[in-house]
């Protein structure tokens, strides 16, 4: 049911090769034509990801336009990530995991109070990461107002025909990766999810590896 596709790109040729520790934010521009890989180092990590057009950050990744365009809830090989303006931002070109989520959103201190307990406010959360990363990067011109529905790479949020939505154990594993080609210049903003209250990270947030290749190396 899921299409698994591998990549021939060699990490030795990558122009960027970084580790993002568990629970931390990360952001970086990705140029049109470059290939971006997110690698799940230890398995079952949720990688909360937003994309903005570098030329006009008011244009950004749209979960609902991506879902509507492909008439499918899940992301995988071949999925075109669509912007709020209906433009193609990135295309998923390799995926050894098989399914990624864009309905589950990002954890927040406030939503944790609703989902788990009022006392769970005081735990590190993805939307604090997003807010902090955007605040420290004035050059992006973005703020809390711009934190929109994100992608959760490697996260498993199955939906039934009756409309039930659940967070399940991940279907990812150590070394699984997803790779996408930028179709426009974008800014990628990530929170390497610190959630400790549900199985999206197997209750154990872990580091991820981020790589970028230039178009000519593809």
């Amino acid at each position, binding site marked *: 049911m899921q299409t698994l596709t591998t990549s021939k790109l060699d990490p030795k040729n990558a122009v960027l090769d970084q580790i993002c520790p568990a629970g931390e934010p990360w952001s970086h521009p990705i140029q049109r034509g470059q290939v971006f890989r997110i690698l799940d180092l230890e398995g079952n990590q949720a990688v909360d990801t937003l994309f903005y057009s570098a030329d006009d950050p008011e244009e950004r990744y749209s979960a609902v336009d991506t879902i*509507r365009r492909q008439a499918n809830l899940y992301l995988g090989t071949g999925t075109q990530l669509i912007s709020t303006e209906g433009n193609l931002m990135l295309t998923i070109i390799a995926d050894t995991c098989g399914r990624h989520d864009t309905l589950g959103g990002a954890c927040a201190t406030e939503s944790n109070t609703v989902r788990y307990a009022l006392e769970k406010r005081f735990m590190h959360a993805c939307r604090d990461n997003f807010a902090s990363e955007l605040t420290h990067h004035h050059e992006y011109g973005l703020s809390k107002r711009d934190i929109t529905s994100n992608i959760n790479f490697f996260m498993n949020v199955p939906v039934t025909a009756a409309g*039930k939505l659940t967070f399940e154990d991940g279907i990812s594993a150590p070394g699984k990766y997803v790779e996408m080609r930028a179709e426009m210049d974008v800014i990628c903003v990530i929170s390497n999810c610190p959630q400790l209250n549900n199985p999206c990270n197997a209750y154990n947030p872990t580091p991820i590896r981020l790589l970028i290749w230039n178009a000519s190396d593809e």
Partner: protein
Amino acid sequence: MAEKNESIPPGPVLWEETMPGGMQWSGIVRRGVSLRLTALSPGANVSALFYNHEDRVERYNMADTLKAQHTVFLTKGHVCYSDMGRVLCSITADTAGWNDAVCGASDDALIHNKYGIKRFQENRNAMFRSAREGFLKELAKWGLGKRDVTANINFFSKVTAEEAGRLVFHGNHAAAGDFVDLRFEMNALIVLSTSVHPLDTRPTYEPQAVKLTAWRSGVAPAQDLCRNLCPENVRGFANTERYFAT
């Protein structure tokens, strides 16, 4: 269904307005006021966005709403969460039984590609309109813009997912007279469009009219279906009441 015949809201009506198909509307509905959306013909759709009127950076959040209530669609008993863990409004009635929360809004490119172009010059107010452009027009009136358009709800529209996530649009889900009641638990800016659902399968552009009726209902009582639907909602109401504590 007996409920479908209750066309008169259970409280003193504050105002009433009919939106023609394809049009947009925005306005403030206060805490303790309910808004009924009534489909006036089959196949109606209302694309909707909600904001906290006192701080519009706080707004309806699709993911927080769905994951708190373990659902991919919205119906009677569910509430609409803001991104701050508070309840903007409760769905206290829904005679059609399914409102889509994940397919977004029609935009101009979709309308043009699917139905062609009908502009004002030749068609006057029968021109084709998309929900996104309607949202942007209304948002501009409140000092808001593209950055504020988030994942919206499509009231009266049903879209289900098959096993592999493939979406199926159920045409004419709402019949004439079907209604959805939204009880506002916060002072909210509401932005609506009656343009067609983006996955509507009709071959022609046929947006339908919808009636809005506001009445004084009060906020959620202690014994309330929405408040007590799940432990998450009990906590969402606790957060909301803390916000209004004086």
